[in-house]
């Protein structure tokens, strides 16, 4: 219950500020306006359409990033030589902030879905890749030795020891990657979107509708939180065995 105390306090503060006129409606919409707009969007179906569009982009981009990160992460993690070739370039690319990508992507990929999904994928890729490489490097050699004493082939060692051992790291990376995917989605949807939560944001911005802006921000917060909670649940289910192990 304690976790709801702060949001509740903020909400009350917000309501008071707009009701008392400390903050004008054109600067910050009131809770009532935001809920009204939310209801309006839900009634016309636009809400689900926009949420659906954003969620689809996030998951498409995330899926691509996951696949790519696993491949590259495994290659780099498995071989120092490959690391020396690939990693420095990847680290440099990783340093570029999301909005800096927008003009480049616009130039190369235009304004369609491909461009947006690519942007999301770029954001999601790096946390997963970095975590996987760290996970592979950090696998306890002692466990691998056990596999060796049982005469496991290299393939069997990878499948039966390495993969389960790196799963916790991979999932943490995936969780962070999903959060990044949402962040990059905002940048992507500023890029000539015709639908999506980011579109609601820019529409509100361009037509001076603060209620739409706040609805968009609210939706981003909720979607981001749900994604994260979902991943944490998955983590608990798949890698609940972590924590204090006598190895």
């Amino acid at each position, binding site marked *: 219950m304690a976790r709801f105390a702060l949001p509740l306090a903020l909400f009350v503060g917000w309501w008071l500020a707009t009701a008392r006129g400390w903050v004008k409606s054109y600067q910050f919409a009131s809770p009532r306006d935001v809920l009204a707009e939310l209801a309006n969007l839900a009634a016309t179906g636009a809400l689900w359409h926009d949420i659906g569009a954003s969620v689809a982009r996030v998951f498409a981009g995330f899926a691509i990033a996951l696949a790519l990160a696993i491949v590259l992460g495994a290659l780099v993690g498995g071989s120092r030589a490959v690391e020396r070739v690939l990693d420095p370039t990847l680290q440099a690319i990783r340093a570029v902030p999301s909005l800096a990508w927008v003009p480049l992507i616009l130039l190369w990929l235009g304004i369609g879905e491909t461009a947006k999904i690519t942007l999301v994928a770029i954001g999601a890729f790096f946390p997963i890749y970095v975590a996987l490489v760290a996970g592979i490097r950090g696998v306890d050699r*002692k*466990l691998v*030795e*056990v596999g*060796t*004493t*049982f*005469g496991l082939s290299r393939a069997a060692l990878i499948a*039966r*020891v390495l993969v*389960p*051992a790196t*799963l916790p790291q991979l999932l943490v990376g995936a969780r962070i990657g999903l959060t990044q995917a949402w962040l990059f989605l905002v940048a992507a949807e500023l890029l000539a979107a015709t639908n999506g939560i980011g579109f609601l944001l820019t529409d509100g911005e361009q037509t001076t509708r603060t209620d739409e802006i706040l609805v968009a921000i609210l939706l981003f917060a909720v979607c981001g939180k749900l994604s994260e909670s979902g991943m944490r649940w998955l983590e608990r289910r798949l*890698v609940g*065995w*972590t*924590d*204090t*192990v*006598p*190895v």
Partner: protein
Amino acid sequence: MSAARIRGLRKAYGAHLVFDGLDLDVARGERIAILGASGCGKSTLLRCIAGLERPDAGTIATTGEVGVVFQEPRLFPWLDVRRNVAFPARTAAERARVDGVLGLVGLAHAAQRLPKQLSGGMAQRAALARALVRDPQLLLLDEPFAALDALRRIELRAAVREILEFTRASAILVTHDVEDALALADRVLVLAGAPADIAFEGTVGDGATRAAILDALGVAEYEGRARRATSR
């Protein structure tokens, strides 16, 4: 047909020569304990036999399966006890042994637990059970009780003794504890020198008395210290 036969074992780490032409025989059903000062190479010897290190020269021949128990349990944290123990099982016959082996080490009641839920002693027993699933002819134990407290050590030592009697497997026990050697082994060896070689060898109940072993260890320790002093 001996359980293990080592001839002319030579192993170096860079400039440091650990063994230079070591010979060793372990007969079927025989248990030997190898003692020595820390760093003398006894673990290296065991790891060579286990296939974890490759010798530079010499031959190592073993008959049948070899089971290994390390100082740490090294259980796979993502598998429960049963699955950990069943990990090495390749055939239906081996899979059928899992329950029996769990009972042997006294972990039948804890088969569903995860490694993080086990005490140190229980985890080590699970590791032992895992090493037994393939019905090994030779059991390699590398300081298996080192991580346990005195009480657990005595318990587990007794358990291992019973298991060895029951399975009739040969064993090579590497330890720095004389009591372990006296409790579990038929033959006791002390490794010493650089490169290491067998400095003392005796049968328990005959030449390998506590005093004699300690003596051999003490000399080895003294020699080791002297060598380190002069090489500085």
